[in-house]
């Protein structure tokens, strides 16, 4: 089933000369992991804000085209209906905190969508287990570390069990350990939950192996989109558009461009080593 369908989408913020995004067409399948890549100020956040309905409902500007989530136009849905279907984790976790303790933060969305209290309790236990934040419940969300803040932010959205979860640069403010922690959570969400994940990220090395589809936003348009193996072909094109393919992929792509390798382009190191080993073995002279 198609989770998100975008047709000829365009958006111009009020007071700006140019459209932030224009002529965007995209389809995202249900239960897939889509990564949105691209340089800063090229329309990534605008695109996901349109999917969430934040645009046009919370911003002024000019809208063109159509965005449908599970067949429903996002412009015709209320905040509660959208919150029920789509979760949104902001780049700055502090920007989304609205409560005075982590526990209140986690249950805030659940209360908004009208869940009964026993269900709220169950989901609170479930989500604190996933994000390992049970010991933070009594603390203020402003007094915990950056990594903990982002885990709380993700948990507060995940607790609502949306069918689609959008994460807008969830690791941009974290140290390497914090980033690893978030990617561990994302890996588990992809493996063990029926969830459509849309992640805006700059960390290509870590996000590429998780992706079913990668979208490159450049100058307000989709410059390239496709499954990872296809997306990372022609690394020179990606480089021109501000993207560096994962090193393992770029290495094999270089070999491919010199007709030394013909297989699919893997995105993680383990697969790349395996491909390179097979390649070396095939090039070894036979012992006879």
């Amino acid at each position, binding site marked *: 089933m198609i989770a998100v369908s975008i047709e000829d989408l365009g958006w111009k913020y009020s007071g700006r000369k140019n459209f932030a995004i224009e002529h965007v067409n995209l389809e995202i399948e249900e239960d897939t992991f889509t990564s949105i890549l691209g340089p800063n100020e090229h329309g990534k956040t605008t695109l996901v804000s349109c999917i969430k309905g934040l645009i046009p409902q919370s911003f002024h500007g000019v809208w063109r085209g159509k965005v449908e989530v599970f067949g429903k136009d996002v412009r015709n849905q*209320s905040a*509660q209906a959208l919150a029920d279907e789509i979760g949104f984790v902001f780049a700055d976790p502090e920007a989304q905190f*609205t409560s005075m303790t982590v526990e209140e933060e986690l249950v805030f969305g659940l209360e908004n969508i009208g869940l009964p209290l026993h269900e709220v309790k169950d989901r*609170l236990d479930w989500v604190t287990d996933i994000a390992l934040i049970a010991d933070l419940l009594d603390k203020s969300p402003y007094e915990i570390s950056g990594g903990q803040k982002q885990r709380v932010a993700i948990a507060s959205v995940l607790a609502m069990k949306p069918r689609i979860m959008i994460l807008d640069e969830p690791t941009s403010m974290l140290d390497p350990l914090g980033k690893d922690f978030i990617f561990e959570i994302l890996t588990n969400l992809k493996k063990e939950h029926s969830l459509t994940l849309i992640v805006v990220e700059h960390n290509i090395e870590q996000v590429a192996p998780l992706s079913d589809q990668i979208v490159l936003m450049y100058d307000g348009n989709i410059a390239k989109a496709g499954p990872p193996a296809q997306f990372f072909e022609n690394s020179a094109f990606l480089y021109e558009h501000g993207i560096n393919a994962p090193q393992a992929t770029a290495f094999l792509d270089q070999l491919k461009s010199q007709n030394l390798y013909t297989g699919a382009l893997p995105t993680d190191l383990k697969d790349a080593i395996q491909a390179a080993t097979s390649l070396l073995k095939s090039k070894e002279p036979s012992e006879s």
Partner: protein
Amino acid sequence: MRFGKISRAFYTQLLIDMEQTIQTSAPPKQRKMRRTLLGTVPVVSPLYALHPVTRLFTLLFLGVVSLFILTPEINILLIILIFVYLKWAKVDISGLRIYLPLTVTVAIFMFTVSTIFPGAKPEYHPFKLLGITFYLEVFFFTFASYWRLMAMLFGTIQYFSTNRERDTLVAIRTLKAPFVVTYFFSLALRSSGMFLEDMRTIREAERARGLDESSISLRDRAKLYAMYMIPLFTLAIRRTDEISNALFARGYTPSGKIEKGGKRGDYILTLYPIRNIDIILITLMVIVFIAIAFLQIRYGIFSMENSPLYQLLLSRLS
């Protein structure tokens, strides 16, 4: 949810690292404290046996009841009661010394004004001290008012020293205040904290670029503080926008109504059951408050003239 082997090892190692960091960075016997609006209270305190609404009533009782009491002995007893309560709650009373300058300044101001502008009347009883003429009625009224003010001040301080924002919100919500009101209050508390934090960041950034506040004049310092308002308000406006988006993203509506029908639940309130002791204490406080107000308004029982100390001084001067 169950994690795979690699993830479990990763998390376990992370938790061990965190635990070791905590163990090496904190003194072993340090008590765990919980930050309140004006101080800290140990995580384990008998105070938490009381419902937040009962604690809110202590603010209304101890912070307001002195308005009806001008007998200094009773107000001093109330202050002693407040200190006993704080001691019982295991609040670090030494932290209250930060209010000492305030109490001294208020005393100097009040007694100076009443000495310079006594508004002497023929029936007043004058007495001389250090060569200055005082009038008993004016002097004692200042003395009684000072202790009334102190009782109200410490009645308020005790509440904010023993309660967190969450306690206040739970108390207000328990009293069935509309959701939008409590939420507005919560956001106001949050924004004030962020405003101060932003100000600290801006000042640190200026100091990092070589600003030495001690070397500039008072006038220039005032100008500097005025200039802080520009980035602070810009940040505040941006934050307003962010919070608005966050509320939308989480399905918040100002009415608090649920589209699917039913009432918006309040999970946090379920964690704070009201017990018999709360009902008894609240009832007691309300009765005592009404009794004091009635006795003072109707009979003037707690007026200055009924103070034993005042009567003693009056008999000496008569």
